[in-house]
């Protein structure tokens, strides 16, 4: 008699994760292209002021990773939604897997791309500064107001925002696969509510809740709990579907 192999969830998740890292390399490519565009857009700095006196000319360029960051957040959401579309979904079930292991591997993948996206988004700022060094003749006085601890907090926050967007995109993608009607109603409702409530209420509260949080630790907890909830919802919702592929 043949013996059968039993395999643990964690080892399958890990194998799936490694496989996805390789097979979804296109995700990283699109990230690179987007961030290059972001660099080009912010080549002059997002804020530019010039001041001229008799003796010298002072040009102030304010470089930030804002554009790259914005692009990366959008990219995260879209990439996560794409993972749940039919083409990718079938691909997800090619080798050994079940629903849970597939979701867990996807979440690990999205976490990784968020980390990579967050760090590279921040680095685009320095690419702009370096380009300025190389392309211009004028002497440069660089003033950075950030301490290293603030920088780390900044990157961490960026990563969390991207992952947040990923989680929203992922849940939305799952809803889209599960029930087209609800998937269309949700954005309509969200926009409708916005007008209906006249910019107060829900959105202001959400804005305050996530974006105006002054305690960094509290911010991390809030966002992490929300992300976990969203991914959890995705897992529960996809269990209602009859087919894996």
């Amino acid at each position, binding site marked *: *008699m*043949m013996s*059968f*192999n*039993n*395999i643990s*969830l964690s080892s*399958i998740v890990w*194998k799936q994760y*490694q*496989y996805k890292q*390789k*097979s*979804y*390399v*296109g995700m990283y490519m699109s990230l690179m292209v987007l961030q290059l565009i972001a660099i080009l857009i912010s080549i002059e700095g997002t804020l530019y002021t010039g001041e001229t006196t008799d003796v010298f000319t002072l040009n102030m360029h304010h470089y930030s990773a804002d554009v790259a960051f914005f692009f990366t957040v959008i990219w995260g959401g879209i990439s996560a939604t794409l993972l749940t579309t039919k*083409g990718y979904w*079938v*691909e997800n*079930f*090619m*080798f*050994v*897997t*079940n*629903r*849970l*292991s597939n979701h867990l591997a996807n979440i690990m993948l999205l976490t990784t791309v968020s980390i990579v996206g967050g760090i590279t988004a921040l680095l685009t700022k320095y690419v702009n500064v370096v380009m300025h060094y190389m392309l211009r003749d004028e002497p440069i006085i660089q003033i950075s107001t950030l301490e290293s601890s603030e920088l780390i907090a900044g990157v961490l926050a960026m990563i969390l925002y991207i992952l947040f967007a990923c989680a929203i995109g992922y849940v939305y993608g799952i809803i889209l696969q599960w029930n087209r009607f609800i998937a269309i109603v949700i954005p309509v409702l969200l926009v409708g509510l916005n007008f209906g409530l006249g910019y107060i209420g829900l959105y202001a509260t959400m804005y305050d809740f996530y974006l105006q949080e002054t305690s960094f630790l509290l911010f991390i907890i809030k966002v992490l709990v929300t992300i976990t909830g969203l991914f959890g919802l995705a897992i529960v919702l996809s269990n209602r579907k*009859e*087919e*894996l*592929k």
Partner: protein
Amino acid sequence: MEAIVCEGLTKKQKQLTTLKEVSFSIPENTIVGVVGRNGAGKTTLLKILAGLWRASAGNVHVLGENPFNSLYVSTNTIYISNEMVLPNSLSLSVLLTEAGRFYPRWNDDLARRLVEYFGFRGNDLYTQLSTGKRNTFNAIIGLSSRCPITIFDEPTTGMDQAVRNDFYRALLKDYLQVPRTILLSSHHLEEVEELLEAVLLLDRGKKQLYLPMDDVKHEAVGLTGRTEMVYTYTQAKTVFYRESIGMDTTYTVIKANQVDMEKAKQLGIQVTPVSASDFCVYLTRAGKGAIDDVFQ
């Protein structure tokens, strides 16, 4: 031990019932052919067995477990079909390595030798392959995985005759080396009948027959003779198929154990064997009529 057991398996997809009360069991280490016409429910059945689709009603046990969403069944099963989607970002050689990481019994040596034999280049991309080539590559993955339950859903689609023959031969050789349960669905029963130990024939979602291959071959015989004689002789017998050939001659297929050779000979009726493939076609004909009736 039974590798696969189905009891009253039913699958509803929207309004359509694609499988109706299908019951059978497949013992370990056998090659079973799943045949039937287009839309008979072959793919539905195989996907349920592979754990990709959930049964609507009835019981399914693969290796003693409900296959749907089961990691254990997924590890020990591979489902090869022409719907497979493999990433474009990895070369064929890397794909083999990746597939090998998932299947505990994967034979990498065999995979590489087959890939070379069938004329693939290691750095080719999957999506650039033709349909036949793609299915050949899928089949190589299926063979090399050496899963205790290997399911081939019309694996030879688009393959040329030489590759088909090679594939069947490779399948048989590898099966003899490493016995496992193999399910093979095909439209060409005559091509695979040498391989198969049993045949499961589906017709419009129902199990039409499930018999050992030898029995299928001897299940029916063909009678050719004068129409009048044949009609008289086949009265009260199980007639599978009837066709008139020429002015006054009829060909009728009936159950083999109902034929008395001596009597048939006396009536001037010629008795001929019916191939398994033809028998299956006769069993699953849409109605009483034939394509000729469409043109009348």
